[in-house]
């Protein structure tokens, strides 16, 4: 078999097997996400410029709950393979645990758990996020305001 013919065969084989790649690699590839911890209050300070990416959501929270100040306390980038937990401590002596459970076609499913310092589980949830979409978990009362956690799929 000539080199050219062999190359064509390899190309054909590759194109036939390419649909299998997402299935083979999906369990191994880490799913990336972002966690932003936001302190919302009614003090007259304004909106932290680092929250520009959440402008639409911040505006809704302003309109609905009357917050006037939004401060980004923490911005974390997480990633974990499917079925592997990712954890972080958050203000208020709580912890947040995220487990990617499925990832396909730009949609990612996460199991999200919010836990108190004494181990008491406050909420167990499953959310499905399109890449770039954000869901909020809230709200932990904190210093005349509330803490919200914004979880976004990368």
């Amino acid at each position, binding site marked *: 078999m000539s080199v050219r013919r062999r190359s064509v065969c390899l190309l054909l084989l590759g194109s036939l097997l390419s649909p299998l790649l997402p299935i083979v690699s999906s369990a191994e590839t880490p799913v990336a996400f972002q966690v932003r911890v936001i302190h919302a209050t009614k003090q007259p300070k304004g909106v932290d410029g680092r929250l520009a990416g959440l402008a639409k959501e911040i505006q809704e929270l302003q309109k609905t709950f009357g917050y006037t100040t939004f401060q980004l306390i923490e911005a974390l980038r997480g990633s974990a393979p499917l079925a592997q937990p990712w954890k972080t401590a958050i203000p208020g002596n709580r912890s947040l645990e995220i487990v990617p459970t499925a990832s396909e076609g730009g949609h990612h499913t996460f199991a999200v758990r919010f836990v108190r310092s004494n181990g008491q589980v406050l909420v167990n949830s499953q959310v499905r996020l399109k890449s770039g979409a954000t869901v909020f978990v809230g*709200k932990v009362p904190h210093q005349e305001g509330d803490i919200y956690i914004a979880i976004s799929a990368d």
Partner: protein
Amino acid sequence: MSLSEIWRHRAHLALPGRSHLLLRHAAGETSPAEGQRVEAWLASCGECRRLVAASRSGLAALRASAPVRLTAAESAVFWSEVMRRLDRGGTPAVRPVRPGIRELLGDHPRLSLASAAAAVVLALGLTLGQFGLWGASSGMNGVEILSVEAGDDASVMLFQMPESPVKIIWVFEPPDPL
């Protein structure tokens, strides 16, 4: 698995509401009738089995894993560090607050746990009971809340203002033990 089988399974999974129901089944939240329907799908769809298995293992990992705890040293500096960060960011870019629904609604008092529980019943009745609505609205901002399980003493409300893209899993906590 042959290519035709893969495509058949993917098409099977892509049917509207199917992945939703599969994930609810994995979380043990389907009715007996729904459960029977899902089991029939699982018998013939490998992709569905894979999704349910992944979801079950994710939930199991969450339920079994030990919670993250701060060390004594971390606890000692935690709040001072939060305060320091808040103070450090004392001059953020200021954006005017637009008046709107706030004026219409007024500043409602913080919900008590009892009223929160009532709200939960109402909200869950309106939302979890109509999963299709949540799924259908996901196109607006790409967020679907598939299941919510509140802890023993906590209450949870799924919150979304009409015509708003923001979805909040709102946790009402019992007061901290003294």
